[in-house]
């Protein structure tokens, strides 16, 4: 019964997402593309924050690493988007493995600061290693790749085709994440979030659990970074800056870190709000700050989280 309802919901969502390019103007297709990319980034961050209980302030480092590696691949290696994507994902996953190996030794605030520090090291590399990364100007000027789909060659320069490309990758990433959070491994992550000291007494190693989650989150952040760099036609140092990590944290809280799709909803609300607010003022950050403060004080479970809680209460009320 319930699984049918779920199936229906999934089908509806997919149908809506797939029909968008035929219904909306190009401008909104592009906004939606960006929302999709950031959704995957935010959901991968939430594997650490919401599910494992680790606040990382350095996820932008992996996001940017993915972007730069993809662009570098396209410039110097191969013209295939798939090779660029794999390079971005593997590279950022590898960097996450090294950094994570060090970071998972610390908890809470120390973990947050340590990830912030390592993220900023990556930022510094992107910013200062001019000969490779182009410095503060970023790295662009690559030819937009084409994809061979069942013998038909499609160019990603077309916003509609790029939208579908992003949609497929993001759906794959989302599918992987949903598998993870419902798996035995996902259960242990939640257990580690609830009581990290107890984990050793059920026979598991909390550090390696966290490291595994960190690498997955880093690799998916890298994948999002690849898409982001393709979308903007450039990889720039800002992608790695800690304030970019802050933005993703904000999206996650906005939607709700306790719900699987919370970060995605948060990303959507974020972009729509940004769009509306920047149309009448340039001081969009002040609104962002106010929203964040209100969220923490009044709605710590986020928009989607609060909605679901209210819905649950109403349903219970009806039953009684």
């Amino acid at each position, binding site marked *: 019964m319930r699984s049918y309802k779920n199936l229906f919901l999934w089908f509806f969502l997919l149908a809506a997402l797939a029909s968008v390019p035929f219904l909306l103007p190009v401008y909104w297709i592009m906004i939606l593309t960006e929302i999709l990319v950031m959704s995957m980034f935010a959901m991968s961050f939430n594997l650490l*924050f919401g599910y494992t209980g680790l*606040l990382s302030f350095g996820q932008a480092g992996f996001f940017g690493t993915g972007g730069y590696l993809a662009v570098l691949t396209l410039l110097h290696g191969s013209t295939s988007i798939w090779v660029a994507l794999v390079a971005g994902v593997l590279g950022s996953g590898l960097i996450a493995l090294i950094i994570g190996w*060090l970071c998972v*030794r*610390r908890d*809470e*605030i*120390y973990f*947050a*600061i*340590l990830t*912030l*520090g*390592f993220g*900023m*090291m990556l930022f*510094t*590399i992107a*910013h*200062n*290693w001019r000969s490779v990364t182009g410095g503060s100007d970023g790295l662009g000027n690559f030819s937009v790749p084409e994809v061979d789909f069942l013998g038909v060659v499609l160019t990603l320069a077309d916003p509609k085709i790029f939208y579908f490309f992003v949609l497929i990758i993001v759906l794959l990433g989302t599918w992987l994440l949903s598998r993870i959070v419902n798996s035995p491994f996902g259960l242990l992550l939640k257990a580690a979030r609830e009581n990290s000291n107890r984990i050793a007494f059920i026979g598991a190693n909390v550090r390696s659990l966290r490291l595994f989650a960190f690498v997955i989150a880093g690799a998916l952040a890298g994948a999002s970074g690849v898409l982001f760099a393709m979308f903007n036609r450039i990889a720039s140092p800002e992608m790695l800056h*800690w*304030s970019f990590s*802050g933005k993703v*944290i904000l999206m996650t*809280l906005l939607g709700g870190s306790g719900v699987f799709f919370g970060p995605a909803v948060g990303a959507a609300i974020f972009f729509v709000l940004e769009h509306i607010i920047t149309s009448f003022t340039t*001081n*969009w*950050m*002040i609104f*962002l*700050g*106010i*929203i*964040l*403060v209100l*969220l*923490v*004080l009044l709605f*710590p479970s986020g928009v989607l989280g609060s909605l679901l809680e209210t819905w649950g209460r109403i349903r219970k009320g009806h039953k009684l």
Partner: protein
Amino acid sequence: MDSVVANILNGLSWGMLLFLISVGLTVVFGVMGILNFAHGSLFMLGSYFALQFVRWVGSFWIGLLLGPVIVAFLAILIERFLIRPIYSRDTSLQLLLTFGVMLILDDGVRLIWGSAYHVVNPPQILSGTIAIFSGTYPVYRVFLVIAGPLVGVALWAFFTMTRWGKTLRAAAMDRRMAEIIGVRAPLLFTLVFAFGAWIAALGGVLAAPHQSVGPAMGEHIIIESFIVVVIGGMGSFPGAFVGALILGLMNAFGATMLPDLQMAMPYILLAIILLARPRGILGEEL
């Protein structure tokens, strides 16, 4: 020789400003358990008040006197209405709340003073240059190097000689202990937060003639002062002093000797300290 003197002078003056902002950050963390992302923005507000008082009354000194007080008052409001409701909550949420406050303050400054950078001239007696050995250096920089330790000594005297200071230090070391010996927590927290803001803003006013005043300075300095606080030992007052000096000197020498690495050096230092000695150089090992 000259470049060494210049580097030391630059490093020390920057280190002194870092120290002023980090003291509050470390004491607030020690006593309240909150890592305040908005602390750098309070420093920045100090600089803007210096700018504003120079514009209004033409006096840097009045800004130095009144600016920090206004910022401290603002900090009382922030503590009372935003931070107090979430003391019992998750540390991540506390961090995020102060992150939100930072966004508001930084953009608020942009709203009031615009996003351009401003220059504040040093007061008459402290302008011009001075000859040390064979080189010449801005008088104001020398003033900072002297003023910093003076403020440090004053703070040290406050922390070790006065009853209030001792209570604060005890509370920063062990919060529960402070409650046992009868410190009224809510009032203590408010005062500590205001005190931290006051010193940060004092640093901000002093920094105004030293560097250009702009809306991004809070965001910049907060990360560096996080690093200072962590390498010195969170909650440790002498640690903040040592950490600030190390970072200041490292920045100055790094800029001339290893310009490509200079930006990354603080982070490398941070990572090494956090991994090898998580309580910091002068923090209590558990």
